[in-house]
């Protein structure tokens, strides 16, 4: 399928989702849906580096928070419309992603993961000590009540996140089916062999960290308007990191569908658990699912579906043979 057609289909699906949300007539749907969509963007972004290249990023929260805090910084200076903030947040996180990649991507595997964890703490410390954006006390953002044409502000935020999710998924799919994606796959499978065959691994990895970081930053940019009060310890929380790792791994990391399924499934589950049980149980569920899936179903839900589809004809043939071989059916 050509990318423009895919993009159009995504837009149609998004329009249906928006119409369905509007049809429920309950504002809470927007609040819950925003979080789920935000995770769709975050896990898709994570998967571009983690799933395609095989580099684990524990610093999702750092990139997300960078996006959110660039919004706060701009807001303190002069409140701007959200699309501008998206671009700004994406740019800041993309640049930091590039810089981090340049510093650490010469390291393989685990070192990279630890370095991203370290980056998150360094950035948190910087933000805590930066009084302009509120420091450890946090920052308040006053959001307008209404937006022309759309109505309620939360509706507007929901719509923006929906479009961002469409953009993220289209980007991921585009990468997957391009030279870039094949390059990423060679890095994941065998980096030394890829390098030896002339794949410019460092450059590809830098592209991956930049795109992935930028998307995470864009997911964070509207967040201050959603939450109203931004505080470093929750914005830099490891919850974002564990979720954005768990979602692609549970869904399946090899294609754009995996993070989407994982985010919708796990995101909705968490929204339901938060309302019905408690938010601590939330993380417990994520932890258990993550551990269970990496042990039992290493290729996620996609892998399960795939093996099921492949096995089915064999089972069918096998069963039929048993039936015909059965003594009763002999003439």
């Amino acid at each position, binding site marked *: 399928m050509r990318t423009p057609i895919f993009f159009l289909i995504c837009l149609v699906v998004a329009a249906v989702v928006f119409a369905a949300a509007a049809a429920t007539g309950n504002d809470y749907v927007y609040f819950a849906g925003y979080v789920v969509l935000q995770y769709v963007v975050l896990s898709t972004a994570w998967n571009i580096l983690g799933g395609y290249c095989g580099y684990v990023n524990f610093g999702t929260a750092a990139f997300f928070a960078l996006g959110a805090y660039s919004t706060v910084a701009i807001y303190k200076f002069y409140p701007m419309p959200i699309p501008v903030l998206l671009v700004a947040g994406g740019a800041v996180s993309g640049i930091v992603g590039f810089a981090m990649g340049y510093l650490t991507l*010469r390291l393989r595997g*685990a070192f990279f993961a630890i370095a991203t*964890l370290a980056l998150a703490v360094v950035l948190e410390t910087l933000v805590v000590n930066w009084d302009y954006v509120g420091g450890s006390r946090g920052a308040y953002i006053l959001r307008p009540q209404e937006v022309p044409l759309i109505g309620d502000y939360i509706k507007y935020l929901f719509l923006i996140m929906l479009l961002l999710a469409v953009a993220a998924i289209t980007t991921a799919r585009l990468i997957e089916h391009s030279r870039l994606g094949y390059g990423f796959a060679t890095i994941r499978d065998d980096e030394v062999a890829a390098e030896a065959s002339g794949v410019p691994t460092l450059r590809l990895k830098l592209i991956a960290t930049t795109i992935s970081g930028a998307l995470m930053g864009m997911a964070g940019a509207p967040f201050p308007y959603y939450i109203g009060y931004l505080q470093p310890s929750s914005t830099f929380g490891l919850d974002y990191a564990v979720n954005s790792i*768990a979602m692609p791994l549970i869904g399946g990391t090899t294609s754009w569908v995996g993070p989407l399924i994982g985010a919708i499934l796990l995101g909705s589950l968490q929204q339901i658990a938060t309302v019905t049980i408690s938010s601590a149980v939330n993380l*417990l569920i994520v932890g258990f699912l*993550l551990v269970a899936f990496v042990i039992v179903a290493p290729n996620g839900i996609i892998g399960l579906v795939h093996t099921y589809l492949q096995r089915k004809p064999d089972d069918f043939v096998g069963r039929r043979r048993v039936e015909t071989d059965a003594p009763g059916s002999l003439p």
Partner: protein
Amino acid sequence: MIFSFDLLINAVISGVLIGGFYAAVTSGVSLSFGILDIVNIAHPAFIILGSYVAYIVNISLGLDPILTAIVMMPAFFVLGAGIYQIYYVSFEKRGQESLRGLAFFFGLLFITEVTLVLYFGVDYRYVEAPYIGPTWHFGTIGLPLRILVPCVVSLLLIAVLQLILTRTFIGRAIMAVAQDQLALRLMAVDPIRIKRIAFGISIATAALAGAFLIIIQPVEPSVGREYIGRVFAICVLGGMGSLPGTVIAAMLIGIIESLTATFYGPSWAPAVSFGFLLLTLAVRPAGLLGR
């Protein structure tokens, strides 16, 4: 001028003491990550588990936390050996340890932390022992026993570990596993068994480190997160798998953190170890005493 000199000396000394404690915290990771190449990112969670075990026994029986930890070490050893077995069967055997193994430990970290939150809540817990409170004074220098005792016991622990690694058969086999598994197999030693033992030892140190932690500061379940980066910073800085390197790096980080906290304010301290880690990774990934 005199005053600030005293401040400097005190900051350096408390840095050294805290560094001794950091060394105990890191020794487990030096074993698992440095020698076995298992990225046990959940190690701080096991340390917190150790803290809570010490806390429960201290509250209910009034036993000394360090003594409790030493008694509990075999239980932690078994726990570690069990976790390694799961890790081996699910990841190492299939050759998927890099991405999914990391995610596995990350999941374990969350399960441990949230379970503790659900049972004990997010209140800070502390223990009671005779050496918590008093401080020895030498002129202007103060040595709080609360930190001195863990530091001394921690250095003992590391000395014992180093002796085990260099003098006993098992210890040498562990070092050999790190170098060449196949050769070990040819010598009729089962590398998986050796690794299971080594990982068990690594988790067993967490019991002791946990007791130190709750002696030094009140503990709540998410305190462990601060230690993830610090522990790996020390481990990498010291040179993967080198215990003497770990001690030196731990004291270095301790001193730098303490100086930062004294002269720039405690809110800057966390950035120091992580900044150091990033620098080390970028400039000299082999660490100070790399193997």
